[in-house]
């Protein structure tokens, strides 16, 4: 493949945004989890909820900090690498992404600090309220991102003005587009499920090590219990996202299905190796009629194939085809584990079911993998368009960038991000490994709410050693 500046820009955007999404998809769910723990603690008075909330709060702080740091670059990348996109869609994307930034800062400004440092300084109901506001704020942030991205998938409420700029004519059509209201819940549930599998995984880990048994059981019970309810809801919303894609982004739908030719009734390709050059699938396993059933809820409908469109209007097939199947596969595993685990937990202690504990522990990346694969399906499937049907990705890039320039910044940020990621992961790992020990409140002024990384003060990032201050006993 010829290495062009556009290809490198796409790699750069994909890698920075993939790196970034890991943290929000974790923290959006964690904020809700912390709110729930706080509410449970207030309602029942059981100390285990308080211990868990103190424990997960420090993890939340580090993940939140990494999300903020990795997000800064995103605010600039639209202008640097995609200047035509930002010049033409700025009137719509700019305010939407601007609202995201302002929401994040305003929430951070008012309630994040209370959540981090206010535990013993404000009334308990107000503390609960602050947790709720942080959760609401992170949710609102994801809302703006999803409105913006959904507009790129299915542009509405605009007219093309002078110089080809997209001018907003109807903001409520943009905010209440049918696409937003299936994709936003889909992403929100993905974030909740990511946390709902990370939390039991930490519980299972500590139970396997024979420590913090009460907390470990609570984490597994709450996490898997929530997942047992939410995974089916997520499957429903996944189906609805598929429905809109079928109707409004037919090229993406055909690529996901690896359907090359119109079929009536259509079969469903379960697994295959799509051969793009010859426009056919190798080693395909298909189920007749199922394609029509999935696409149109009928056994006779005609489903369109990619060859309807000229090659330069088709998305890549291999990536959406496989990422979609990986995402669905993760979903099925999550469903099985959530239901089976909840059942076993309801039947009694599971301390001796080592293989179940190991499975719950090993399931922690499922949510991340599913979320990333879902995004790859959505974004690669939208190609060759940046704004579906309106603005091609090749026309959205900065016209005068050279591949040398982009290669330089790509390497620069690969280094910076790996570096941050390495240290951030070590931090989070050490915090999780230490477990829900009774932590002291940091003295006010020792750190501040805008520097979450400084919360992990007693972790030496170089040696990774935990230096336990006096009064803090490791079990």
């Amino acid at each position: 493949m010829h290495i062009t500046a556009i290809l490198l820009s796409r790699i750069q955007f994909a890698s920075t945004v993939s790196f970034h999404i890991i943290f929000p998809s974790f923290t959006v769910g964690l904020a809700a989890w912390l709110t729930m723990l706080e509410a449970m603690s207030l309602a029942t008075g059981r100390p285990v909820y308080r211990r868990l909330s103190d424990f997960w709060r420090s993890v939340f702080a580090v993940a939140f900090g990494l999300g903020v740091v990795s997000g800064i670059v995103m605010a600039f990348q639209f202008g640097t690498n995609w200047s035509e996109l930002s010049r033409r869609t700025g009137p719509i994307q700019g305010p939407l992404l601007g609202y995201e930034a302002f929401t994040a800062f305003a929430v951070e400004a008012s309630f994040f600090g209370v959540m981090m440092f206010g535990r013993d300084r404000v009334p308990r109901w107000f503390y609960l309220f602050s947790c709720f506001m942080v959760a609401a704020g992170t949710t609102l942030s994801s809302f703006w991102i999803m409105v913006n991205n959904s507009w790129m998938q299915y542009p509405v409420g605009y007219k093309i003005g002078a110089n080809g700029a997209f001018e907003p004519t109807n903001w409520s059509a943009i905010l209440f587009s049918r696409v937003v209201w299936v994709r936003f819940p889909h992403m929100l549930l993905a974030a909740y499920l990511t946390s709902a599998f990370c939390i039991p995984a930490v519980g299972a880990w500590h139970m396997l090590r024979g420590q913090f048994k009460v907390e470990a059981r609570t984490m597994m019970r709450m996490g898997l219990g929530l997942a047992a309810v939410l995974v089916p809801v997520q499957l429903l919303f996944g189906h609805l996202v598929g429905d809109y894609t079928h109707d409004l982004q037919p090229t993406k739908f055909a690529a996901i299905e690896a359907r090359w030719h119109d079929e009536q009734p259509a079969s469903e390709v379960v697994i295959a190796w799509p051969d793009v050059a010859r426009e056919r699938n190798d080693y395909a396993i298909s189920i007749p009629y199922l394609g029509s059933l999935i696409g149109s809820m009928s056994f006779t409908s005609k489903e369109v194939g990619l060859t309807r469109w000229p090659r330069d209007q088709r998305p890549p097939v291999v990536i959406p085809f496989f990422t979609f199947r990986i995402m669905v596969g993760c979903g099925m595993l999550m469903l099985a584990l959530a239901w089976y685990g909840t059942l076993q937990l309801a039947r009694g202690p599971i301390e001796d079911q080592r293989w179940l504990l190991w499975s719950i522990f090993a399931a922690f990346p499922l949510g991340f993998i599913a979320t990333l694969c879902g995004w790859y399906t959505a974004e690669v499937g939208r190609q060759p368009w940046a704004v579906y049907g309106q603005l091609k990705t090749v026309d959205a890039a900065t016209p005068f960038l050279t591949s040398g320039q982009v290669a330089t910044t790509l390497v620069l940020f690969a280094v910076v991000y790996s570096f941050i990621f390495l240290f951030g992961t070590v931090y989070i790992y050490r915090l999780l490994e230490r477990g829900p020990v009774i932590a002291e409140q940091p003295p006010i002024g020792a750190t501040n709410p805008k520097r979450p990384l400084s919360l992990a003060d007693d972790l030496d990032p170089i040696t990774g050693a935990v230096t336990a201050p006096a009064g803090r006993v490791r079990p």
Partner: protein
Amino acid sequence: MTEFWVAALALTIFLYVILDGFDLGVGMLFPFIGSEAGRRHMLAAIAPVWDGNETWLVLNATILFGMFPVVYATLLSAFYVPLFLMLAALIFRGVAFEFRGKSTRMRQFWDAGFVVGSFVATFIQGVTIGALVHELPLQDGKYVGGPFGWASPFALLCGVGLWLGYMLLGAGWLTYKTTEDVQKFAFRLLPKLMFGVLAFLVVAFFSALYLHLPVMHRWIDRPLLFVFPLAGILACWLLFWSVSRRRELLPFLAGIGIFAAAMGTLAISFYPYMIPFSITVADAAAPYSSQVFFFWGAGLVALPLTLIYTLVVYFVFKGKTSVEPLSY
């Protein structure tokens, strides 16, 4: 409505420049004090506020993207490599700031990262201003300068000028926030930095004359412009006076005055151009519907809220930094 967003943009840029200016300045002064105690003292003086200061940079970008998309697209793409360098420098500087206190073996490495990050980020900001004054190579509103079209001797000179300017702000902040050795060090440096800044301004003025920069014509057209340099001269005098009297807060305020004068000068000599002398405010402004949509939530609620929060933080952390900083 456009006027509101021009004002909001000017305000957020000004806040960014003076706020992050002083902590970048402290970062650049950092290597010039020998003792570890002095260094910790300096860090403690900016610890509670530095990253709050950087949020204004993101808000600058945000307002540009939404309200002046043409300027956002043109500037960010024209300054492609330096902009990414600046972001990397700012991120690395932030990480170094957090980690230096937690390590002993790698402290020198983190110190170097903190200092180099401060110098690089400041230099690029100065170069950006210089390149705008010198005029970017644009044709029909499109950048045609190539990867290094922003680089001119004049722009690089402005990078050096901003080093001095931010160090001046940094030293002013230190006389206000610190005591003893560090404060003495800052008082000693202030007059030197002030002479440095004045020397830079003189050189910049004569190079602008020599280069026949179009910006100079606007000065002849608009004699009222001289109000700002006059205010700047007044602020310089105030700085010398306050240093000689060992006033603690006044040097910093005088430094802000100098920057306000400089920004006012630039703003009026550019106006109505946002990218001189090719793209005007009217060319760049987003449609009215975008501006109104952004106004009701971001302009009316979130921006004031962030301003109030900034004030609260500075109020909470007012007064002297303790000599034995807590977590460093």
